[in-house]
């Protein structure tokens, strides 16, 4: 492929706008004797059009080919359909996307020229193998490739190797961690939820990770999140609504922004100032959640179960008795009360659907179409008049207990005018650095986007692949547009972009950390967080079980505290809290059902360096704690949608220059040194330094040094015993390292 790429980049003249055609795959030779394996698409004036295995279309003068091939080309019939070397359906889908990108570029040019900007002549040059392998690892598995992964790919001569690598990466564990990071940031998934009460997002985090691992389709994931009931540790999907317990209106605004690319947040308080959304419409949407409760009411009138029996919250009832037990055991209730109440309180967070819709207009509602505090019936919003005749809108909205199901069915329905488009636009942005429609949370009018035809086509593709995100990304990664070099032109904020290649981007915090982990561990996916969810195991109490007694609650609380401490130790944070004095001796609580925590304890399989737990970002605290590499690098605090940033800062630079992570990489025991030793030639007479430096550059920057760089590097290692460490330090501190080409 190396040869192929070279030939193509030298021959490549412009983007091909032609339609696809039936193809014969063969090896073509040019006048200089270089070869490429590609299928014949057709002739266009004096040009020939070929398609390579990766789906890329190439157009160049026919006269560049050998006389024999020129004659052959003239004899061939242009074909109807592209036949690809591998995975033809994907290649075909990718080619169609490329065509729309190319058309979009063509349409944008007159306007650009008018604005004094140069016309875009076509896709950027094809990225070379080194650029491609680095980018595709970072984009699909969220880290740079290790030395072996990079060199194996670069040396591979299989013409279909790019498509093969994409397939392999999409099926590797790294895909799940990286996709989880993206979704977690978008959905604001976090461990320690606001409002205290010991409610933790762990079961939700685990649920989301499992969904991604199993490649559950997007529509199903969203449906499950919107309709889940019960406690989070019984159904992780319940975390979506419980995450925002107590603030259903904010949750709804986020739901619409994230899943439907529709920003109605303003309409929470007043009619939307720019778009057509009214406050009344917002409340109509909120009404779908009006019969849903995310919390058992501590002081509310007693609930009744299905048999009409009164359900008593035992957490309240047992408190005096628990106080007595603790005090008689010499415990200090003032020190324990808060924690105990939070432990019990966490069990009040559960989603239930009731039979009464409590949604009402706010007391300060000021528009004439209704009065303050009026009840509001559920009604779907529509983006155009025709929308209401779509199948998605055929939902029953009368049955209070099933309102969420109606809402979720409408939301995730293929004919919902925004659902497929919103996620397709987001996935496109993941690959290219910019959405076709910006911002991705507000697709007000697709026709105003940078490339309306492309946006609509991608929405259709998302439906065609049945919301299988992996399959969708496969199409995008196989496009010629994606496999182009990164755009060097500076695109100002808010300026439209036409996708002649991906934009240059700084690594996300997670990509940077996971790349460091790759440099340290080689295969960081081997190191996982402890599998067992100790939190879910120990927190559960059935507060409405009339047989619940004070002794059991206290015992469970004790076990919970022990496990919390243990779990903290396992997660590598707050070791100090492990082994803290427990409120009661084990002897006093043993004898009843639950076993003390010892058998839950697990070996911590992770490595650590100077207090840093060496695992991938998706396997660490969500989000990481204050001062962590990830936080300094702009990891989202998970309070707002897509809340990360990529801004540099002084602490960040200090960390890269002087922090523990760089120390770990420049250490003589680091994997980079071991790789250099492993690959250096055994022959003493060979240029050992050159081979080692090649390996060093390949490990860190995924490219070989230039001649000038090699000269400098050789001089450095010859003159200084710390030369190799100095070069590692220099390379991980380059902009080239921290940006994704």
């Amino acid at each position, binding site marked *: 492929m190396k040869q192929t790429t070279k030939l193509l980049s030298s021959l490549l003249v412009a983007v091909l706008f032609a339609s696809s055609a039936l193809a014969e795959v063969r090896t073509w030779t040019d006048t200089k004797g270089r070869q490429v394996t590609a299928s014949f698409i057709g002739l266009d004036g004096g040009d020939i059009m070929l398609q390579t295995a990766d789906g890329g279309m190439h157009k160049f003068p026919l006269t560049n080919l050998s006389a024999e091939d020129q004659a052959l080309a003239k004899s061939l019939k242009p074909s109807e359909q592209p036949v690809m070397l591998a995975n033809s359906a994907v290649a075909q889908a990718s080619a169609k996307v490329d065509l729309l990108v190319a058309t979009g570029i063509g349409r944008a040019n007159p306007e650009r020229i008018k604005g004094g900007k140069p016309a875009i002549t076509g896709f950027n040059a094809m990225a070379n193998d080194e650029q491609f392998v680095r980018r595709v690892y970072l984009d699909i598995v969220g880290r740079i490739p290790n030395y072996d992964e990079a060199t194996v790919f670069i040396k591979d001569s299989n013409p279909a190797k790019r498509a093969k690598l994409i397939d392999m990466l999409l099926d590797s564990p790294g895909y799940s961690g990286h996709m989880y990071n993206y979704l977690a940031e978008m959905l604001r998934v976090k461990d320690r939820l606001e409002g205290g009460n010991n409610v933790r997002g762990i079961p939700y985090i685990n649920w989301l990770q499992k969904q991604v691992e199993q490649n559950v389709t997007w529509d199903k994931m969203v449906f499950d999140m919107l309709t889940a009931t019960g406690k989070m540790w019984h159904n992780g999907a319940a975390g979506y609504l419980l995450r925002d317990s107590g603030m259903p209106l904010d949750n709804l605004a986020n739901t619409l922004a994230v899943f439907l690319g529709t920003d109605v947040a303003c309409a929470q308080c007043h009619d939307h100032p720019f778009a057509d959304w009214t406050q009344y419409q917002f409340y109509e949407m909120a009404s779908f959640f009006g019969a849903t409760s995310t919390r058992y009411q501590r002081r509310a009138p007693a609930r009744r179960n299905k048999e009409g029996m009164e359900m008593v919250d035992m957490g309240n009832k047992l408190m005096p008795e628990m106080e007595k037990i603790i005090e008689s055991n010499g415990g200090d209730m003032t020190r324990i009360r808060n924690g105990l109440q939070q432990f019990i309180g966490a069990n009040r967070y559960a989603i239930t659907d009731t039979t009464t819709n409590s949604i009402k207009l706010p007391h300060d509602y000021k528009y004439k179409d209704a009065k303050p505090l009026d009840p509001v019936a559920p009604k779907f919003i529509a983006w155009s008049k025709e929308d209401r005749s779509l199948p998605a809108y055929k939902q029953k909205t009368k049955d209070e207990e099933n309102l969420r199901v109606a809402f979720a069915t409408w939301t995730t329905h293929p004919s919902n005018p925004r659902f497929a488009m919103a996620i397709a636009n987001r996935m496109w942005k993941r690959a290219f650095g910019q959405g076709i429609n910006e911002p991705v949370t507000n697709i007000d009018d697709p026709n105003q986007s940078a490339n309306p035809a492309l946006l609509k086509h991608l929405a259709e593709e998302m439906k065609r692949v049945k919301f299988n995100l992996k399959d969708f990304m496969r199409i995008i990664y196989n496009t010629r547009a994606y496999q182009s070099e990164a755009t060097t032109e500076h695109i100002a904020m808010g300026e439209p972009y036409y996708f002649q290649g991906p934009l240059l981007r700084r690594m996300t915090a997670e990509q940077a950390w996971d790349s460091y982990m790759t440099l340290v561990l080689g295969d960081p996916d081997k190191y996982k967080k402890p599998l067992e969810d100790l939190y879910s195991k120990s927190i559960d109490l059935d507060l409405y079980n009339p047989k619940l007694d004070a002794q059991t609650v206290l015992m469970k609380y004790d076990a919970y505290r022990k496990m919390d401490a243990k779990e903290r130790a396992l997660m590598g944070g707050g070791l100090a809290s492990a082994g803290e004095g427990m409120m009661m001796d084990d002897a006093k609580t043993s004898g009843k059902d639950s076993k003390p925590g010892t058998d839950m304890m697990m070996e911590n399989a992770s490595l650590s360096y100077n207090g840093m737990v060496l695992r991938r970002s998706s396997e660490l605290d969500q989000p990481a704690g204050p001062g962590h590499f990830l936080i300094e690098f702009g990891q989202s605090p998970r309070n707002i949608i897509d809340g990360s940033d990529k801004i*540099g800062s002084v602490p960040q*630079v200090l960390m890269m220059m002087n922090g523990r992570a760089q120390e770990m990489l420049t250490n003589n025991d680091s994997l980079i040194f071991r790789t250099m030793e492993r690959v250096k030639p055994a022959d003493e007479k060979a240029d050992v330094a050159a081979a080692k430096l090649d390996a060093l550059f390949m490990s860190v920057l995924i490219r070989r040094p230039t001649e000038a760089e090699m000269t*400098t590097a050789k001089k450095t290692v010859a003159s200084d015993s710390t030369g190799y460490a100095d070069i590692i*330090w220099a390379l991980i501190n380059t902009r080239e390292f921290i940006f994704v080409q």
Partner: protein
Amino acid sequence: MKTELNRLNPIARREFVLRTAQTALGVSVMPSMLDGVRAAETASKAGGPGSPGFGKAKKVIFLWMNGGMTHIDTWDPKTGGTKGPTDPIKGKGQVDFLGGTMTKMAAVSDKISIVRSMSSKTGVHDAGTYIMKTGYEPRGTIVHPNLGAWASHFLGRVKGVTLPDSVVVNSGSAYPGAGFFPPALSPIPISNPETGLQNLRPTTDEGQFQKRLSLMNEFDSSFRNKFKSEEVKAYTEFYDETMKLMKSEDLKAFDLSSEPAAVREKYGRNSFGQGALLARRLVQAGVRFIEVQFGGWDMHNNIDTALTSTGATMDQVFAALIEDLASNGLLESTMVVMGSEFGRTPDVNENEGRDHYPLAYSTVFAGGGVKGGFVYGSTDKDGRRVADKQVSPPDFQATIGHAMGLPVDEVVMSPSNRPFTVGDKGTPVLDIFA
């Protein structure tokens, strides 16, 4: 000379004065002379040089209450149906009442001005935060600067100090930071005041460190030449800034351990208390604008318990900071401001909490030329609506900018050639200044 001066447009006039001063007098321009020019420019509008409080706040400590601080339980307590879990307590001067957990602030309320008539348009955390910190609504096309960056733009970098002009404490992110101004004007984020600025020392000796830097620049040169984007350039600027800072003597300002234990206790051993103490040290070290963040205000559930922790901590820290600044003689020149993205609903919800409420809320000012024991504006009896003298987020920004001596109505063009002012054309609330 005077007529010639008047013919020039405002910017040219200032430059003219500066140049004349530098060449004719051989010294840098005297502030009073510049003030005169600004006075001429801004005479038609409220504020500006010569008006109350202008330029009195040489430093600003901005206490940011993350999550939406409940106004009824803190600065604008009510006794009717919307009363909070505790009874209001008496303050000093015009500060008739404060929330029940505000005992320490009540004692120093003769040093504060409360604005009880804030009103904003958005009840969403991120948008509300953005508008309170920049004066502008968030847009997909530009990032607006915060006040620290505006101040550096108008007043220049603080002279003789190697620390940055602004710092954000208790946050990993400086956002929105320098906005469209150069990244060098961005605040330094300090995620943990106890540990301050980490990794200040190279792990090698100076010679080797320099060698590493020159290798970095050499190996990176082709990439930097190929990709001349703003983002790449910004990173290179951060490396330059960081290198300067690493050599700075002023870094000891970040070392809280050199404070007496009693002082540290007085502020409270928590991130907000120690963050406020760090802010005071940074003021002494010359940093101009310090934001200290404190979360926990998003009290949708059980507001009574939330207030006994978050509310009481805020009370202790704010009061300690005012007293400490006063006893160090810094309160005259340092303005302490407390703000939040919005207030909270007057009605308590089903979870015994309060929800987001942008229609009426409060902000607080102390020091830097601000009146003591003063209340500006009011809400109705239940705290639902502004009853008098409504203040918008742009006005709030303009007020701080005015106190810092910034020309708040001067238009600055962004690199994308769009016009902006400090706080989006807000009007400073001059009544709060003595």
